[in-house]
């Protein structure tokens, strides 16, 4: 079953002096359980694409369907709720609320979902354990390394039991050891929990770990290969 269906989307940024054509007709489908990398050089439109997939931004034209629901016409306020219950996000950096502990950060998303306290405590602890950072549960993000912070962000993204997780260059600020750690953990969660991951990168080592690679160039899909 397809979790995401993108049909001929374009995105033109018009706030700039010269309009920027960031996406020029992108189409693909993502199936449940995929582990997909969106790759391409800086400026090719990866972030723009992921923002549109995540309902953070509207395409200029085209359609985005998530679990057969068209989100392109959805109101911003409805999209907030839609994101909460359907999409997990991991950003490049500063994902976490600095004044909350690691555990509270993971819990926070379930608090928004109104999951009861006992359940969310337990699930957060379990996730932190799976991410191998349970011992940091009561520390603030600033006391964690970049790699650890990103793992907490992945835990938070998983916590809401989303249909899929979008990660925009999650390893861009990490050293190679942390990078491969994070990818390994994501791969494990993909295999064991059947969680769908879509991440963008321009790092070859990260690309190597993906099972499907969609390459963008100048806002178009240049290639789309499945390796298995």
């Amino acid at each position: 079953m397809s979790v995401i269906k993108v049909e001929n989307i374009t995105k033109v940024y018009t706030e700039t002096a010269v309009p920027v054509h960031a996406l020029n007709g992108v189409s693909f489908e993502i199936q449940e359980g995929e582990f997909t990398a969106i790759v391409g050089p800086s400026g090719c439109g990866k972030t723009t694409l992921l923002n549109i997939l995540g309902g953070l931004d509207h395409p200029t034209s085209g359609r985005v369907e998530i679990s057969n629901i068209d989100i392109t016409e959805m109101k911003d306020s409805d999209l907030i709720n839609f994101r909460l219950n359907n999409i997990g996000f991991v950003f490049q950096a500063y994902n976490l609320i600095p004044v909350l502990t690691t555990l509270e950060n993971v819990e926070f998303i379930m608090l928004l979902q109104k999951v009861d306290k006992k359940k969310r405590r337990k699930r957060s602890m379990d996730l932190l354990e799976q991410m191998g950072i349970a011992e940091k549960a009561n520390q603030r993000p600033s006391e964690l390394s970049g790699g650890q912070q990103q793992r907490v962000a992945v835990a938070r993204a998983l916590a809401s039991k989303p249909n899929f997780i979008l990660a925009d260059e999650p390893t861009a600020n990490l050293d190679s050891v942390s990078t491969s750690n994070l990818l390994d953990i994501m791969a494990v969660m993909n295999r064991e929990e059947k969680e769908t991951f879509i991440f963008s990168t321009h790092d070859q080592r990260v690309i190597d770990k993906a099972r499907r690679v969609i390459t963008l160039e100048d806002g178009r899909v240049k290639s789309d290969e499945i390796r298995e």
Partner: protein
Amino acid sequence: MYLTLAWRNIWRNKRRSFITIGSITFAVFLACIMRSMQLGSYERMIENAARFYTGYIQVHKNGFWDDKTIDNSFEYNKSLISKIENTPGVEVAVPRVESFALAAFGTKTKGAFVLGIAPEKEDQLTRVKDKLVEGSYLSKDDKSVMIAQGLAEYLKMGIGDTIILISQGYHGANAAGIYPVKGIMKFPIPDQNNQTVYLPLKEAQWFYNLENQLTSIALVVDKANHVEIIVADISVQLDTTALEVMGWYDLMPDLVQGIEIDNISGKVMLWILYSVIGFGMFGTYLMMTAERMYEFGVMMSVGMKRILMQFIIFIEMVMMTSIGVIMGVGISLPILIYYYNNPIFISGEAATAIENFGVEAAYFFSLQPSLFYNQAWAIFIMALILSLYPLIIIQNLKPVKAMREAI
């Protein structure tokens, strides 16, 4: 957890929060002290005026207020007194004969304000016994007088000397008398200190050729702010075609007006103070919002509703403001309680200078509850208005834009 989040957010930048809270504290503290002194001085002025002369409420003959002559007197009878004294809130009804006389001793003469009093009751209103600096207090059957110190000095007389009083009595009768000085009193208000003569009520009635008449009855009441109600209560019981009942605010229109004008200047000062603090608070909110744009973007991306973010920000501001207000009141309250019970009296040359303006050389403080909660309200309303800024920012926040621009 939302409250925890708000609470911790306040302490993200400890120094800034301390400065903000500190400035609120300082403003509230200063405002409370300023208002307390101002209201305290009004209360004292009203009390002084009421207790020197008019009482909080006065009953007199219709017309007496405009033409204070001995001819505008009324009969003093038991039923009248009991009606007045039995009105709830009235503590003492003080009968008086008030008029003027020429006072003379040796070669000196001076115009004097003559007050015929029931010595014990009068003391309950004016605490005149405390003003006695020499000699002894009048009793009701005495045929002697007490005079104010300034007058005694002017006339160069002391205890045991005999003062001559000359005036005009009821319906044009001659009034003349000689009285030994039994006591000398010192009053803080110069006018009063320079011209007051006290006589026992009976003696004054005799002197002015009155039968059993009074010029006024001054009332002591339990609470100054009950005066309006008590005036209404007494008025319904009396024949108001003959008698008039007046509250202190009618008895002292100049004072009321003076207070109102002074009060406005005090309020202007407060608003200036608040505006200064308001700008400081606004600066803090501005920075607090600006440096958290990325975070707001992330929170909204992952599914946090605007209204919830606004709620948290709002709570943060309420918390900061409350801490500031509570500390401001908390610090000023004990100080004000202390000075309320121990007013500051000025002495020496400064005192003389102040007294030359006809006011008492002392600072009095008020503990009116409104003084405190008015400050709290003012600051809160201001914080509320200022908090609109971050709330509007969040209302218009686009997560992608917020995160992109923050980097």
